[in-house]
């Protein structure tokens, strides 16, 4: 491991610990950092004092969901950038986010959400995966997945989902509209241990799969034909990667709503620090996504107190300028003949 990579991992670990401590400590009830272990222990030992409940029932699940959802989004972004060979790809391109948002909006507007709590995440999950499956189907012929067709199909179907969502919002009463907004802009309100456990399970499934394919992702950067020539089963790698990425993003979206740009920004920045090898890049992306989403949530919770900004608004505020900066740099590179 190069010294630079070791430093980067050290910095990420420190940032993760620091952001976790801030996320648990800061809020309407301030918990001093040195009280966190004792309050956590007290909650799990069955004490129900204010600080113990705030830490154990509210802040810890929120932190764990932020860490795991951020990891899932950044990890899937890194994988999609590898298989699409496009550094501007993010989980939005496979339609899971827009499909998930549509599912959530339908759950609220049809009244399912009012009848049972699991209806909204369940429909968000189902629609997220369904839209991803349609996009994959449209991009695949003769058992080959055309990545450009996948991007185009993703843009088209995401636009269709957005149009339907706007129509539903237009026709919905104000109260339902507010509920829908939570899904459209993503939020970590009301995160609980069940959601954290589900996210942990899918992350635990996805990470080894992606790490196992990391060498193939490296080789794919040289071109699909070169990859096939050295024995990479390119179509299988794309299929497995898309399926697993769709699964973890669908679970993340069904838990937190749509959170944009984490999957774009994190791998992009970390590629500069970690180099092009995907094994360290994937591990670092998982950590970086966790840090970004935790800090974004902290900003959302504290920037306009006593109100809260949805975390998706904060990541978009960071992501859009970053995306434009990437486009600007790319244009400058082309203008300079680089």
């Amino acid at each position, binding site marked *: 491991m190069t010294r630079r990579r070791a430093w980067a991992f050290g910095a990420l670990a420190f940032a993760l610990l620091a952001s976790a401590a801030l996320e648990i400590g800061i809020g309407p009830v301030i918990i001093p950092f040195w009280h966190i272990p004792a309050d956590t222990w007290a909650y799990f030992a069955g004490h129900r004092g204010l600080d113990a409940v705030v830490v154990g029932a509210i802040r810890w699940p929120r932190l764990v969901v932020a860490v795991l959802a951020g990891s899932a989004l950044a990890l899937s972004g890194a994988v999609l950038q590898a298989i699409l060979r496009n550094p501007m790809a993010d989980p939005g391109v496979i339609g899971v986010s827009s499909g998930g948002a549509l599912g959530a909006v339908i759950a609220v507007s049809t009244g399912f959400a009012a009848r049972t709590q699991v209806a909204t995440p369940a429909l968000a999950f189902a629609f997220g995966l369904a839209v991803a499956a349609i996009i994959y189907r449209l991009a695949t012929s003769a058992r080959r997945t055309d990545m450009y067709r996948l991007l185009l199909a993703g843009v088209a179907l995401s636009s269709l989902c957005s149009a339907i969502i706007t129509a539903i919002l237009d026709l919905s009463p104000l109260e339902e509209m507010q509920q829908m907004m939570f899904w459209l802009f993503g939020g970590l309100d009301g995160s609980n241990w069940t959601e954290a456990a589900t996210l942990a399970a899918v992350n635990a499934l996805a990470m080894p799969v992606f790490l196992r394919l990391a060498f193939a992702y490296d080789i794919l950067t040289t*071109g699909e*034909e070169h990859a*096939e020539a*050295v024995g990479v*089963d390119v179509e299988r790698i794309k299929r497995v990667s898309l399926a697993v990425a769709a699964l973890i993003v669908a679970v993340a979206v069904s838990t937190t709503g749509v959170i944009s740009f984490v999957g774009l920004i994190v791998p992009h920045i970390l590629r500069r620090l970690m180099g*092009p*090898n995907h094994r360290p890049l994937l591990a670092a992306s998982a950590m970086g996504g966790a840090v970004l989403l935790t800090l974004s949530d902290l900003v959302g919770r504290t920037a306009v107190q006593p109100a809260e900004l949805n975390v998706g608004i904060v990541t978009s505020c960071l992501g859009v300028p970053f995306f434009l900066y990437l486009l600007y740099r790319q244009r400058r590179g082309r203008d300079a003949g680089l």
Partner: protein
Amino acid sequence: MIEIHHLHYHPILKDICAEFAPGEMVGLVGPNGAGKTTLLRAMAGVLRPTGGTVQVMGEPIHAREPRWRACRVAYLPQFVADDIPFTVREFVEMGRYSHAPSGVLGRADAAAVDDALAVMGLMGYQDTPLANLSGGERQRAAIARCLAQEAPILLLDEPIASLDIHYQLDILARLRALAGEGRLIIIALHHLELALAHCQRTVCLHRGRLVADGLPDEVFTPELLRAVFRVDARPFRDPHTGALRLSVSAAIPSTPE
């Protein structure tokens, strides 16, 4: 080692039949659009033909999985991107994928990579980013990646196109040495004189058909050069070196078909 039976790839290749043995250095020639790249891709198994079969070491290559193929056939596509973000060693290590798909390389893998780098004269460039190499050095790195596969068959698609004469001769000499060790090397070439001078056997394609197959001086007849390459030319033996050369006097004007 490779047996091709009535290979078709509609509409590019038509009824190709050929056999290639270990130790041969075969030049695959033909004008633009003759089907050289398509034939190499079909032989490497990365392109599924619409008819016929390609058997590699007795097995139909298209029925086998990519890693099996890569252990037997190393294929170098025509274009190597110039913005690959890896060092020379990392790039050559990719040739070990079929042996170590997880990317965790053992001693045997490291030895194979060292050998490949040494054969291509790149030991001193191991940690150099591939993007910093000249075109010739990058091409040598790409061939080294093929060698790292330790496959007995090398299929190279115009590996010396756009290189200066030094690198052209250098790479061909290294490939000839590899053929001398018993590997089968099939190399698509545009430069007919180099095919004539460096290949033991020449296979000529024209409009998707195999039109000549044999010793270079038997293949490059004035009639074939006129009909296939549309040039007035004849092979001759250089009085100083004894090597076969090609004397090209004029291009035959194109006529509307």
